């Protein structure tokens, strides 16, 4: 493996604290679950929001992920990093909404029209435009591509970890990342010109 270039460092080994909380959790100490999960909540919510357009569903998805994690923690063997394991649970649940949602719901019909929007500054407008285009481009990806690009760009995971989350090979994970990046770049190209 080549040394990484342009990649953010990421902790692949559990910290001492994580080992401690994990051991206590697996020994039946439910109170250790909160400190064990705390560091991963923001990342889980970000990934859930990438999967669900409705922010409330995203919150529910994280909640269900935590419930499943709590139930499955005694059987967690540490083959993968805890973060990878959590993301894998979330991705699985997101791909099968009928497993955790009470019922499949239709797309919202309601559109709120704000009465008075101030004129945003030019920069803010461009940023919003970029964000809208980016969101649109991400939504056009397949769920696996979207997850792969998110885990790579936002979470800084390497291909092996992404593969563990997606339950595929590292080569397939790389293909998902590259294809997703290419598709998104094609849609927001003009906003990212140097």
């Amino acid at each position, binding site marked *: *493996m*080549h*040394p*990484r*270039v*342009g990649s953010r460092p990421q902790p692949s080994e559990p910290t001492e604290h994580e080992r401690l909380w994990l*051991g206590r*959790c*697996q*020994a*039946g100490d*439910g109170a250790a*679950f*909160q400190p064990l999960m*705390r560091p991963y*909540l923001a990342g889980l*919510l*970000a*990934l859930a*929001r990438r999967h669900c357009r*409705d922010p409330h*569903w995203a*919150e529910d998805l*994280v*909640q269900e992920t*935590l*419930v499943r994690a*709590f139930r499955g923690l*005694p*059987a967690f*063997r540490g083959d993968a990093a805890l973060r990878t394991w959590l993301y894998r649970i979330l991705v699985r649940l997101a791909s099968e909404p009928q497993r955790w949602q009470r019922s499949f*719901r*239709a*797309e*919202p*019909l*309601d*559109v*709120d*029209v*704000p*009465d008075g929007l101030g004129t945003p500054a030019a920069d803010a407008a461009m940023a919003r435009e970029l*964000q809208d285009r*980016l969101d649109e481009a991400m939504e056009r990806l397949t769920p696996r591509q979207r997850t792969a690009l*998110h885990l790579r*760009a*936002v979470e800084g995971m*390497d*291909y092996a970890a992404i593969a563990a989350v997606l339950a595929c090979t590292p*080569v397939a994970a*790389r293909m998902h*990342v*590259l*294809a997703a*990046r*290419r*598709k998104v770049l094609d849609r927001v*190209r003009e906003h*990212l010109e*140097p």
Partner: protein
Amino acid sequence: MNRTTPSPDCPRSDAVLARFLDGDVDDGSGFALVDDATLRAHLQDCAACRRQLQRARRLDAVLAARVGTAGRGELDPLAQRWFAAVTAATPATVAAATVAPATVTPANVARVAVWPAAALLVLAVLAAWSTWAFAAAERRAAAEVCASLPATGLPDTGLPAGCRSDVPAAPTAAAAVPLRQASVTDIEVAGGTLRRRSRPPVEAPAPDRRLAWRTIGDRSAPTEQRLAALAQVTPPRAPLPTHAFLDQLAVLAGLGDRGGGERELHGRCLALVRGDALFQQQLRSALQLAETRRGAPTDTDLAALTVAARLGVPTLDAALVRLMRRHPERPPVLAAALRCGARAVGAADLLLDVWHDLVARGEIADTDAAPMAWFRHQPDHVFDEVAAALAQTGSSPQRVRCLLALGEASGAPTLQLLLDWLQRGSFLESHAAAFALAHRPRHELADLAAQCQDDHLLRAALARAGLPATVDWLAALGLDAEARALLRHGSFAEFPRVAGWFRGTVAALDD
């Protein structure tokens, strides 16, 4: 799935990105000729790859900076809710018993077995020491008491010598107690004092508070007595014990009659609790538990819902909307809680928020008028708020909901509002106004039959309401029994079709 993947400007762009952005090209990558030196040389020569790499770096940066990251302020309340849900959705203990034998390492065993044993040992030592120390102190106190006893064998009165009467005291029952027995009594008194002193400085339990709340909730007691009991209650300095909280919750949920004395008492109780942040915190926790509970709600769930709905605190309202989202069958309970009118502000907004939320999540259809029943028998000020929301909202679906809600109101102002919206609203809004009119009290509609002229919506509304004046219209339309049933009892989704029957026939009916 879109299978057409746009091709990069240079066939090696993917390998360049994988190598220089993701740092992860190895021999098994599947890319041809991708060794490090070759790619470096290629990157220097290929402007397209350099540009693509720059774009991709910016894309990753934008994604990382902007995509769905949650701040701590946003995350903390969410985390609380999530962990409460985890606690509620799983047995109290995952328990060592459920841990697979293979996962029990020696270190785990040490944590499971040794630490509790050590803790028990320490507790036992502390208990033995305190018993010994207490006994020694008690012995010392007893000796001091014995030494201070006057020759009579009776305890010193504590009065200064000059105040003491030289006349021997009259014999009393205490004086009749033999010396030995009196000494033992005094030793016990001293021991009791020591015991009280040796207790940790906990906040004394407040039986008066619980007694006061029970008096407040006692409907057989005179109102003055209940108000006096309320005046004794002060906000607690620490969270109430669970039983005290539940007592208070039950009393608060039980209030709510519209009668004069009860109404005043209820208002004061709610005002007291609105200033009690600790009670509200416990109430939020109760709502979270109710949210995560599966199956039928408990009495505590319903009481928490009722009290929170009446308090009108924004954080509790948000918790209630979440609760309704999880349990879409409970908004009628919420509506019932609001009917007493104890909440002066925000009741309509809360009901409309719940309605909007359930529609947005697909629990009910956008044209579903069933939530109209939530507004039935609500106090007048709720409909004033609905009218205000109707005027202010920029959302057409929200206006439809407001109009439907006004169907449960009574009084001239809201009636005129509905008549106005018959003319000025969009298709769905004007039909909602007509549908709502049909639900108004019949005495309000009696005079409208003469004003129908060519307004087919108003005719449809009056016909649905079953006014005697509409009998001739229906006869002229020649509706069969099924059509009449649809007219009288059809849903709002079907109402436009029903109203259409009256559209082209208005002139003919008048003739």
